[in-house]
């Protein structure tokens, strides 16, 4: 159990069980973007899957909250909350058994370096320093979502934290490696975004035709490795497995 002060000075005690309509609950475990709290979210997610509570349809983990979607015909919300409280009280194991690590190649400044230079100007760094900082950090997949397979990454170094653009840009292509706010992401399909593109990767986070269409899992660890535009072309279509350092 942990607490923070709310806007009006009231103390908020976590976990909180908040209703989301007639068939979902948001279990909030904190109110910051933080590796420890995200590990707790994933631990609760695993504990729920292992407990096999009847009536739970699916769960949606995010930075500091776990959404639990349930069928109220099968379990009433009070019983569900009591079950979840019991699971949490029993202790959550935040150590994931099979966290995977990836080295993701990125051609920085490709195909154009407009955004890279904009980030450099906004942060007071050189383009090379931005690349060195982005590719020198350890990231972790905190959330998968908004569009299919999109990994939202925690671990972006503080000097690279930038406000997103007020307006979205249309047509950001798959494979774009972006930053925005405190986070990084890898674009799985053409989409609009207000974030900044640093470069391109040959990896595709969403491959709808394949047996396992989603490349990344929550909790996966990621490092970025600079490559040239030429290497990017050569790596197009190469099986993603070669970028997996450990785990299956």
């Amino acid at each position: 159990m942990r607490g923070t002060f709310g806007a009006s000075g009231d103390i908020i005690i976590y976990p909180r069980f908040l209703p989301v309509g007639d068939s979902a609950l948001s279990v909030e475990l904190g109110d910051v973007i933080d590796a420890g709290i995200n590990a707790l979210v994933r631990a609760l997610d695993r504990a729920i899957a292992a407990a096999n509570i009847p009536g739970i349809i699916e769960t949606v983990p995010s930075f500091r909250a776990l959404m639990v979607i349930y069928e109220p015909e099968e379990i009433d919300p009070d019983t569900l909350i009591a079950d979840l409280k019991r699971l949490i009280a029993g202790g959550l194991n935040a150590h994931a058994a099979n966290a995977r690590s990836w080295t993701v190649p990125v051609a920085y400044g490709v195909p154009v370096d407009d955004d890279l230079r904009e980030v450099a100007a906004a942060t007071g760094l050189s383009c090379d320093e931005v690349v060195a900082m982005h590719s020198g950090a350890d990231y972790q997949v905190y959330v998968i979502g908004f569009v299919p397979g999109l990994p939202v990454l925690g671990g972006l170094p503080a000097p690279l934290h930038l406000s997103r653009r007020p307006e979205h840009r249309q047509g950001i292509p798959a494979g774009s490696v972006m930053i925005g706010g405190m986070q990084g992401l890898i674009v799985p399909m053409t989409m609009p975004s207000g974030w900044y593109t640093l470069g391109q990767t040959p990896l595709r986070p969403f491959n709808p035709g394949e047996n396992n269409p989603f490349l990344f899992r929550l909790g996966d660890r990621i490092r970025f490795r600079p490559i040239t535009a030429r290497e990017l072309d050569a790596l197009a279509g190469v099986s993603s497995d070669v970028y997996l350092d450990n785990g299956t």
Partner: protein
Amino acid sequence: MADALFRAIAPTPFVTVQDAGRRGWRRFGLAGAGAMDKMSLVIANALVGNRPTEAVLEFAYAGGEWTVEAASCRIAVAGGAFAVTVDGTPVPSLASTVLRRGQTLRIGGATRRVWGYLAVAGGFDLPLAFGSRATHARTGIGGFEGRAIRAGDTLPLRGNEAPNEPERFLGDDPEEDGPCRVVPGPQDDYFDRESLSLLLSGAYQATWQQDRMAYRLDGPRLTHVKGYNIITDGIVPGCIQIPGTGQPIVLMRDAGTVGGYPKVATVVEADLGRLAQTRPGGAVHFKAISMMEARAVRQRFLARLQLIAEEVNSPLPRAAV
């Protein structure tokens, strides 16, 4: 036997294949999609003898022109009050009818509501994508090639001939009115008490900014007490987001799986289809209910869907309606 096909001669712009939507993939970023108005989905399917969740064609405001490349097929249209004709002859509303090879089905403009559903007996022979045939056009998943239907498209049918059965009718259009019920939260604490009472007492209007992803409403502005950025978390259809403008946005079936605006309340399933059927300019009133009340409302709604399906399957003679 030649393939039985349902051909789009002149479809309206946003016709998509929809069913009850997909479950279990939100954690990977896949929205549920599915029919905007679940009750009309159930009615359209019941009228042609399909199971309630069979895939149908969903359209907005009008359906356009269609024909069948098979001996015949049985069809029914539900949802808005659409002017439906076969070769120019009007077809009674909320009733099934047989479309024969070469005949033109025309689904004209609705006089009320927004969404319409065209069901074909036996259903469309389309592959499942992530457990459902619902189209999520924004990500190119499901339905017919993951996109809206275009002129010239041919959708495979499961049957080559309309089943030899009597036509089915639905006596009364199950119209409901009353406020749109919401459960406050999950982020109602981002708003002061006055804002919450404004949401519940204010007269809101649907606007033209409405699609399968979200409906923007016009009306009293809510005031945030803790800013309008939350740490991105899960969303479901029905969530009422309040962005910086203070005007509500109700998230619909195609909305993304996570979002970063505070959600003041969430519309219950029983009223979300009704809200989706509200035309621009139409009034929207919200009423707060508890999570336990919402459970009872949901149970009554599901029971009602079942009852309607049963009523259609044992119809009264048309004259008695």
